[in-house]
């Protein structure tokens, strides 16, 4: 569960570059809920995700994950509660380490790390099984460098990494945006499967309206640091991409020249 209360984030306060990225955001994600987060560039989607993850510190308000108030905790100290997959396939893993070493890093997420071997036999077996589930044939390449994989393969492995250790919430920051359409569909399908199997509370930022409505159980639209739309259930089922685009126009109070930008 995530409970965000009166969350405000201001970048460069007191300078000419001051930017109010989030402006009093209130919302609660129930356990097991899968929320898709949309909004135009600069709406505050990534800032909200960053604030929950701890990359961005809240200027005001509070953030509770599970039972823990994490408002003042740095990213590394929230990692036991938060699993993440980044937009850039290179960002979420270490290209110079092997696949199994990346998995071992993720398997210890949020735990203290000691001097025991990072790659025990039992762990290797577990990794092989989990990677085999992807059906990409990577289970025979566990000792290969992560950097040798394609972007899509890296994102798929990143998803496995995110689910190796337990977590309260899964944060996905446009994690299919950098992939070709085929791989993007595969990774999204994988995301939905893992989310359903493990009942993960999930927050996914996306630029694609189609994806925002197809995946997940609830859709939230941000605009200028505020929530302007929050739909779930039957109301959401009745929505089409056109309706979302209309709403986009309405909140922006202007015509959007190129619909293709949103689709």
């Amino acid at each position, binding site marked *: 569960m995530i409970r965000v209360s009166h969350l405000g984030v201001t970048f460069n306060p007191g300078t000419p570059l001051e930017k109010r990225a989030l402006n009093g955001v209130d919302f609660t994600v129930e356990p097991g809920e899968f929320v898709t987060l949309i909004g135009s560039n600069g709406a505050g989607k990534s800032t909200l995700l960053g604030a929950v993850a701890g990359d961005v510190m809240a200027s005001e308000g509070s953030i509770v994950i599970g039972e823990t108030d994490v408002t003042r905790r740095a990213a590394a100290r929230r990692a036991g509660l938060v699993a993440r997959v980044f937009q850039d396939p290179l960002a979420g893993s270490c290209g110079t380490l092997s696949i199994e070493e990346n998995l071992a890093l993720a398997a210890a997420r949020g735990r203290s790390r000691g*001097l025991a071997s990072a790659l025990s036999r039992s762990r290797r077996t577990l990794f092989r099984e989990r990677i085999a589930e992807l059906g990409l044939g990577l289970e025979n390449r566990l000792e290969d460098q992560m950097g040798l994989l394609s972007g899509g393969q890296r994102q798929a492995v990143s998803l496995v990494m995110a689910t190796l250790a337990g977590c309260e919430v899964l944060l996905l920051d446009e994690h299919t945006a950098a992939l070709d359409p085929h791989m993007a569909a595969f990774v999204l399908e994988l995301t939905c499967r893992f989310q359903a199997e493990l009942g993960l509370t999930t927050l996914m930022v996306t630029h694609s309206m189609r994806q925002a409505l197809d995946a997940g159980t609830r859709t939230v639209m941000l605009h200028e640091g505020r929530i302007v739309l929050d739909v779930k259930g039957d109301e959401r089922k009745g929505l089409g991409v056109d309706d979302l685009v209309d709403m986009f126009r309405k909140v922006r109070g202007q015509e959007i020249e190129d619909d293709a930008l949103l689709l």
Partner: protein
Amino acid sequence: MTEIAFWGAVELGLVYAFVALGVYLAFRVLDFPDLTVDGSMPLGAATSAVLLIHGVNPWLATLAAMGAGAVAGIVTATLNVRFKILHLLASILTMTALFSIDLRVMGRPNVALLTEDTVLTPFYGLGMPDYYVRPAFCFVLVVIAVALVAWFLRSEFGLAMRATGANARMARAQGVRTDLQIYVGMALSNALVGLAGALFAQTNGFADVTSGVGTIVVGLAAVIIGETLLPSRLVTIALIGAVIGSVVYRIAVQLALSADVIGLKASDLNLVTAVLVAIALILPRLRKKGRAA
């Protein structure tokens, strides 16, 4: 080159192998270009030499030298992590300060160890010539150090350290406290260099405040030669490569200096070192270009 000169080169290479291991930890594992080593090497030599003169047990004196090196590493790490000073500059500041500290520790620019017992003393009387004993002793210590560092880097903590150097943001997302990793890594790296200093003082019979000049270049040369001779992604192989690189480098330098034809003098050592490292850095690039063309 005489046999004694050869074993002398091997011995020096094995002493500097500890520098190479330290440089590997800082430069390759943490991706932290650390020049502190130019100061922590003579610091280790000075600390151990002064303690030996005061009759402290040689092993304790050597341990103290490692501790002193570790503190130097932590100072650099603090300047960088806590006060956000650029890593290169932070290490130069520590290195500069250490020059004065080394003088304070010794009370004078150099200290001779002539009659004092060293960690090597018990092994001199065993019937082997001294010029075999020293490299053999250093070799055993190097093997132990390589084994320990390799084990460390393959542990969960060590893996987190490698991730810190490779992708700090990802490491933090996995709950790795990257600041702590830099502190520990820099302490460990400079402790190894301090150990090199202590061994240098005890095998050569003196500690000198100027002996640290160019240490970083020598360490880097060893790491690069090792990577060229034993290219591997496995940390254990890379560590062994650094040790071999250090020895090969010393033998190459000895050959260059003893070849009268070239007309090099011992004082040309730093120039030879810099040129060798420059060549080692340029060659892979040229090779790549040649392949592309």
